[in-house]
């Protein structure tokens, strides 16, 4: 294989995702089972990642946390992608006032520091996944819209697209059946980065306490739980982070392997 990166990346991601989705089967303990007698145990054969301050098995919490995080993040990212690609390609295809309007809104959405906007939305909607989801989608669509729009602009002039006009195809058909499948490649590649970024944002917000709420296990909250015990029980805070890094690494490898030359990176 010419590019081992994609294989390694897929491998890492697959292992983590499988383990996470199958959490109910794989996890050795109930992630919310409080056993004060076993509090703060270091990693061992019985507890791969040790236990936290109320005796919950960290490994199980990490598994369930990863599961929740990954599902939420993938959903959020791809909703944003669909909305953004649709808006962007329509804007690029038709041009005119719609294009300018979408462009302005998208640019403003991107100008805003992401976390600030998400925090503001959480302040209004209340903490929890709902606020995080709204915030991420509110900014996420803009990036895909820009990508899709610029791809559409160059695609529009190609012969196969001009042919659809000559053949009298409706605009809907031209966009959906002919332009979109070509457009979408760069957005999909970019979505690999986006999934990582959004996952880190979700974990970060959960760490701050405004993302996933207790008793839901989430990688960020487990890290937050571990902070007071950093010196005595370092594993609580560090283990979930390692999982996050590995996942991010895997996804980035896939993205890089698919990019073959930083074309998409330059749009960032």
């Amino acid at each position, binding site marked *: 294989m010419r590019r081992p990166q994609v294989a390694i990346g897929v491998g890492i991601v697959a292992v983590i995702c499988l383990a996470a989705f199958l959490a109910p089967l794989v996890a050795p303990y109930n992630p919310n089972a409080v056993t004060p007698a076993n509090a703060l145990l270091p990693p061992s054969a019985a507890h791969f990642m040790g236990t936290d301050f109320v005796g919950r098995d960290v490994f199980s919490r990490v598994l369930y946390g990863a599961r929740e995080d990954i599902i939420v993040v993938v959903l959020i990212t791809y909703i944003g992608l669909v909305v953004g690609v649709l808006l962007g390609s329509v804007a690029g295809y038709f041009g005119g006032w719609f294009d300018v309007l979408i462009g302005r809104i998208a640019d403003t959405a991107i100008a805003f520091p992401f976390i600030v906007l998400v925090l503001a939305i959480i302040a209004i909607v209340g903490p929890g996944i709902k606020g995080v989801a709204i915030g991420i989608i509110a900014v996420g669509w803009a990036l895909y819209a820009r990508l899709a729009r610029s791809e559409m602009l160059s695609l529009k002039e190609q012969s196969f697209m001009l042919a659809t006009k000559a053949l009298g195809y409706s605009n809907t058909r031209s966009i959906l059946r002919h332009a979109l499948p070509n457009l979408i490649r760069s957005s999909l590649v970019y979505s690999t980065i986006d999934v990582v970024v959004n996952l880190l944002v979700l974990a970060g917000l959960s760490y701050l306490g405004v993302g996933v709420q207790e008793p839901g296990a989430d990688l960020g909250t487990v890290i937050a739980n571990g902070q007071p015990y950093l010196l005595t029980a370092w594993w609580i805070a560090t283990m979930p982070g390692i999982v*996050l890094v590995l996942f991010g690494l895997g996804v980035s490898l896939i993205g890089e392997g698919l990019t073959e030359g930083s074309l998409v990176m330059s749009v960032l």
Partner: protein
Amino acid sequence: MGSYFARRAGVALVQLVGLALIAFSLIHLVPGNPVQEMLGTHATPHNVATVSARLGLNRSLVAQFGSFISGVVTGHMGNSITFGQPISSLIAERFVPSFVLIVYGLALAVVIGVPLAVLSAVRPGGPLDHGVRVFATVSFAMPTFWLGLVLALLFGLKLHWLPVAGYTSGVGGVLRSLTLPAIVLGLSLLVIVVRTLRSTMRKTLSTEFVEAERARGLSTSRIVSHHVMRNAVMPTVTVLAVNIGFLIGGTVVLEQVFQIPGLGSLLFLAVEHRDYPVIETLALMAGTVVVVLSLVADLAQAIMDPRVRLGARAV
């Protein structure tokens, strides 16, 4: 030159207005009644109505926006609901630690990143180049708050080299208390700097005029310092300016991790207490900084690179 400046400034102005609209209308657009959230579930409709009236939320949208804008322009943003004191003084108090942190992080990123990028570009495919790329991929996947915690654990708690919380002023104090968060902040920037600088340098290094210079016998270091760098600097500065928003976001998280009393932790406190005036103001500030910096970066680029200001006519 003047027309480019005018056009670009016009775009920035439109963006600022758009930002103000968004910052203002967040409260009204997002589902849920903000006053209800603020007061909690035990609030009676009467309470909600009273507080709404006090905050001026029952006036027409246009009137509210009007006072929001005049507040921004005059600098009197009203009082913070949580702290009771004027927002402007709150911001003034907490401005310095955040500002210093960002500058420190930027400085680290540039001081370490530029040499790394140069060395990588000059020897593409070499061990350093590969090492840098692996490092970039890995650090991209790292959550900022986690890295901050790990560094705090290693260098603060285990080795006792640096403090892990708080902010002390003065040069020595800053260097001690802000080094760890600045490293984390700088790291993510570093990756961007190295990537951009390296790719623009590679592009320039493979152009014909560089080949011509080599043919004429100029040493690599001369070529790099006199020609390649000039072309590479501007895109990097632009990318940095654009990523300021991301830096600001990182500050919010890091100030929580390291307990620094800056604007980031202020924002977080405001969110916790539903202090909408403060949130609006900070959001607007952050957005403005990004818009202004992008404007400055674009203008600087226009000054240095005539192709930019002449646009289509240049080529």
